[in-house]
């Protein structure tokens, strides 16, 4: 069902955890669908310096979470915002059709974390 790359990210997920003093936190999904992702980012000089995730969900949810952290770590915020859920799925070599909807929210979650970061920075600077 899942490709080897998906299974690799599922079995050895990168960047699992929380960042207690995160600059931004994003959450997507809902428990009824069976997938919830939470992403923490640390931003320095407009760059995503550190990123961690926690995910409740199926194999695809875990793997996309892991993959997205690898994809955006060290990237600028602008670069991170360009990455789509679809791009994450592609980076994993594709996902089963029925997993494309609910379980493929990792980029969305990163965008939400960035939004959170921006709203805090905005609030702080205001």
């Amino acid at each position, binding site marked *: 069902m899942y490709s080897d790359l998906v299974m690799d990210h599922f079995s050895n997920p990168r960047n699992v955890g929380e960042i207690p003093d995160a600059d931004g936190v994003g959450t997507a999904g809902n428990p009824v*669908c069976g997938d*919830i992702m939470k992403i923490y980012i640390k931003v320095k000089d407009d760059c995503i310096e550190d990123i961690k995730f926690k995910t409740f969900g199926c194999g695809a949810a875990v793997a996309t979470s892991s993959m997205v952290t690898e994809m955006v770590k060290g990237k600028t915020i602008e670069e991170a915002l360009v990455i789509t859920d679809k791009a994450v799925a592609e980076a994993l070599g594709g996902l089963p059709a029925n997993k494309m909807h609910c379980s493929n929210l990792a980029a969305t979650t990163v965008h939400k974390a960035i939004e959170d970061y921006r709203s805090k920075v905005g609030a702080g600077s205001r």
Partner: protein
Amino acid sequence: MENKPDKVVYMDHSATTAVHPKVLDAMLPYFSERFGNASSIYGLAREARRALDQSRQTLAEGIGAKPEEIIFTSGGTESDNLALKGVADALRSKGNHIITSAIEHHAILHVCEYLSKRGYEITYLPVDKHGIVDPDAVGRAITEGTVLVSIMHANNEVGTIEPIAEIGRICKERKVVFHSDGVQAVGKLPIKVDELGVDLYSISAHKFYGPKGVGALYVRRRTPLIPQAQGGSQERNRRAGTENTAGIVGLATAIAMAEERRDDYNRKVGALRDRLIAGIQERIPSVCLNGHPTRRLSNNVNFCFQYVEGESILLNLDLMGVAASSGSACTSASLEPSHVLLAMGVQPEIAHGSVRLTLGYDNTEQEVDYVLSILPEIIERLRSMSPLYSKAGAAAGGGNG
């Protein structure tokens, strides 16, 4: 955590079972030697006809029926479809109301949806938190226009055994045709159609060490039924199509074996089940056994593991050489939480964390202990990754992978 075993630890026997070597042996001659078409008149065909007759006799004896009350089909799904559509069709002029339960297999529920689009009214009876249908609720739901009640003998996800005999009595009193989906019951529960009071009963061979693609429907004499497959005059005009002789011989051999070793099976498998249930409850916090504590199939273990999602558990089990499932195999393409658990009042996010381990005759204590040795770590690791777990404050925050 122990090393991954050489052989897969198969704990998904409610999804399907391997064909037993004795069953396969009985089937083999009917592929290439005694391959005749049972409906022809020459010697070769008579061999096939005799095998069919003998198989029908064996199955009938196994469930306390008469041979002419058996219709061979292509599996449990066809049996369920034939029972519901066949009776609904036949009694259309009498009424359009069908009663079933909220926890039936999709082979019942989706047929009901199909029928409801064609003018039938369906009542889906609720179940209690253990998944049990209240027989009195069946009685209360019956109206003038009720043509059929269909309640499964045992549930495929949580293993709950329904009070079929009581429901059968009520249906008989109220003169309503009663069907039961017995696909999960064969080999585990005593099945005597008269004691159960069923008018129709569905069976699928691959759930009790027979082949896939063959099943049967018991139809009590004089039960109105319109055939759903038109064509040749096979099965006394009630199910057209060249008979799958090898498959039917396999079904019969499998049911004879299942009946013969039923007590032994229940004793042996039931002990493994209890060991697995107790072991999980001892070793893993925040779990909850789904289904009835005692009125359950001897081979069914079904747990919700809070804060984690079922598929992730299954994938980890698979990586460790254990085959299990979350709910019914045919819905594994779906993302919805189990309709059975929801009907039993389980919260959706908890229902997502359900895992079904269904044991078989060849499972061993060692295998159960192996699962018990790896499962706590899998759950712990997934919980450490779960945003719900830390939110619940039930443990320390997650570590890094």
